[in-house]
């Protein structure tokens, strides 16, 4: 009688660090925090894609979104912005890698400082991370 073999076991080592199932989202603003001065958004989108490509293996930038919000701290003035959302899928191992986090954090701080932001927003998995301290790079 022929010996039956079970289903081949899929080894994790075939997919180093696991599947790319962690979504990292970066928001690239269109204006400085005064709500009016443009920041050279295309340059920052290109730099973000290059960083995500180098560190995590790839990313997608979606077309500009149009946003508006009422600033109640300035007599309800309407502030318009056109952020670009950049998506990057990565592995749990890669997003927890200290070297990768240093590169990602460094990019966010550089953008925050040079584009004069109040905050740079990053979503990893299902959490929102705020970077507000831009010194050190």
């Amino acid at each position, binding site marked *: 009688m022929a010996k039956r073999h079970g289903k081949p076991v899929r080894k994790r080592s075939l997919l180093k660090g696991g599947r790319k199932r962690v979504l990292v989202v970066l928001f690239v603003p269109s204006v400085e925090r005064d709500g009016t001065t443009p920041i050279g958004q295309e340059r920052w989108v290109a730099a973000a894609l290059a960083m995500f490509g180098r560190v995590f293996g790839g990313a997608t930038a979606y077309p500009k979104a149009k946003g508006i919000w009422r600033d109640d701290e300035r007599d309800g003035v309407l502030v318009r912005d056109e952020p670009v959302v950049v998506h990057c899928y990565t592995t749990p191992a890669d997003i927890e890698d200290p070297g990768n986090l240093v590169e990602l954090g460094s990019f966010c701080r550089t953008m925050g400082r040079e584009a004069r932001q109040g905050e740079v927003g990053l*979503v990893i*998995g299902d959490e929102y991370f705020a970077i507000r301290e831009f010194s050190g790079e």
Partner: protein
Amino acid sequence: MKPHLDMDKIARGLRAERTGKVSAGGGYFGAMQLLAEIETRFRVPVGGGRATDPKWTERRLVPLAPRTLKRLEAMTEGVKARSGVSVEPMQLAALLLEKTTEQLDEDDVKDLVAVRRRSDR
């Protein structure tokens, strides 16, 4: 299956602050939905600084007993340790004030004032 991530380690590595949970979806519509959620929930004041509830436009000095402030500080530290959500003691005080004033009726207020007067004597 949802991957288990060490969010504190990620926050430390990024030198970022964990601000709260969001429902992040993939694709264009997921991106737009997430953006709308972020812009609504985590709006940073134009002058920079901490994200806050844009409806809180009034500012008043509220006298507090030191033990009340200590209690608020302990509660906010507990919230941060358990959920990673960062909130200032006086932001928590404002939240509690908002919730309590919504729940109290006129009789509750009369009772509160009466108890306070008795204890002041």
